[in-house]
């Protein structure tokens, strides 16, 4: 039986792949524009997909990190011994420091009461979460954590780790949230120098990341800043709570185009090995206009 005859007997419809390609291409381009315009329409689909995939990711993350830990066991043992010695020395040093600090803490509490500075970020309610998956394209620095709207999380909540700022939640599902870290190329945070109160913009830069830096821009020319000054989130930021440590500046120079200073910043958080994070479940109060919410990217 010839091929054509067989096709006819089975009534098989043969379509040129070219047309399917064009059809799917137009469909995809259509959904890009549609989802750009009506973001909320896709929320249920995204939620459903997240609910389906998150439990599996959470399970396999445990396996993955166990395997990675095993690998590390063999490769890092020399480093660990050296580090252990260094840490032991550090413990002694810290013990003495700690006793001094406990004394000072009483003093500090007293001063705080005096100034009624009870709105420090250390007092905010926090939720602990684990990083369960990362962006698969290597270029971005976004990751998924295992807590979502069920645990009281919402977009624009600040994420911290240890003592430093990690990033901000940009999307939440029922049991997962997507976090954009401050080292991501598209992230920018309104910051402030702790000692001089000069404001600046801290933005991620992929090209500097291997050296462990991100960019600090728009520092005013008159600012008297030097290397290793601390940068914290500023009071004028719309989304970030004030006073969270971001990192330390270095390499300060003048940008001729904008007549401002710019510098590099070393984040305090180790983004390579980030595992557990804390989400501050307090949103910065938005400025409201008469006709709606005013917000900016910073």
């Amino acid at each position, binding site marked *: 039986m010839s091929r054509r005859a067989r096709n006819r007997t089975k009534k098989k419809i043969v379509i040129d792949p070219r047309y399917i390609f064009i059809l799917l291409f137009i469909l995809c381009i259509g959904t890009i524009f549609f989802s750009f315009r009506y973001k909320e329409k896709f929320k249920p689909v995204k939620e459903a997909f997240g609910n389906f*995939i998150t439990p599996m990711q959470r399970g396999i993350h445990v396996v993955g990190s166990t395997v990675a830990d095993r690998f590390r066991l063999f490769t890092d043992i020399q480093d660990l011994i050296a580090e252990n010695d260094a840490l032991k020395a550090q413990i002694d040093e810290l013990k003495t420091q700690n006793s001094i600090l406990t004394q000072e803490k009483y003093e500090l509490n007293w001063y705080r009461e005096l100034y009624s500075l009870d709105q420090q970020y250390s007092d905010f309610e926090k939720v602990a979460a684990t990083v369960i*998956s990362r962006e698969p394209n290597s*270029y971005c620095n976004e990751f998924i954590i295992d807590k979502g709207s069920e645990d009281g999380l919402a977009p624009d909540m600040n994420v911290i780790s240890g003592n430093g700022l990690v990033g901000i939640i940009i999307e939440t599902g029922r049991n997962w949230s997507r976090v954009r870290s401050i080292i991501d190329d598209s992230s920018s945070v309104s910051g402030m120098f702790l000692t001089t109160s000069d404001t600046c913009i801290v933005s991620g830069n992929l090209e500097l990341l291997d050296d462990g830096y991100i960019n600090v821009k728009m520092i005013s020319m008159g600012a008297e800043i030097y290397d290793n000054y601390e940068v914290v989130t500023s009071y004028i930021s719309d989304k970030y709570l004030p006073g969270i440590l971001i990192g330390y500046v270095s390499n300060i120079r003048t940008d001729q185009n904008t007549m401002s200073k710019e510098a590099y910043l070393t984040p305090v958080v180790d983004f390579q090995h980030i595992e557990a994070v804390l989400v501050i479940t307090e949103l910065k109060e938005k400025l409201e206009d008469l006709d709606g919410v005013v917000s900016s990217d910073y």
Partner: protein
Amino acid sequence: MIIRILAVIAEAVLLYILQTSVFTSIALAGVVPDLLLILVVSVAFMRGRIPAMLTGVICGLAIDFTYSSFIGLFAVMYLIIGYLAGFSNKIYDENDYTIPLILIGVAELFYNLLYYLVFYLLQGKLNIGYYLVRFMFPRVIYTVLLAILLYKFLNVCNIFLKRFDRD
């Protein structure tokens, strides 16, 4: 036919989870291998253009739903790769393990260039040399290395599934 579709979805889900959860913990030189691309190109080589395009859209949507602000961007990138790689089906041979690796390498480079074009060039980041050396070449090498194992597995699956095909 239905078994084929279910198999592709199962493979896509498995590789997606591996790529986002396991390989990010054991990333080499800061890059993650592109397992979904290996799947798309393998299907293209083994089965032709139409299955590859559908696989591409499924894999792309999986990334879109979790990691993209717009739906369809990665779907369209994988769709183009599936379509183009699908032409290679004409020279498919069950025992050929070299051509698919070359195809996967070329496709990975193409995918990265597309990604650079969409996300960085349009932002005015012209330093393509840096992105090539730092991200694209390491990703191509890492992906091809993994493809050596993964393609073999996918090929065995394909040969096994042939039993269920009618005529």
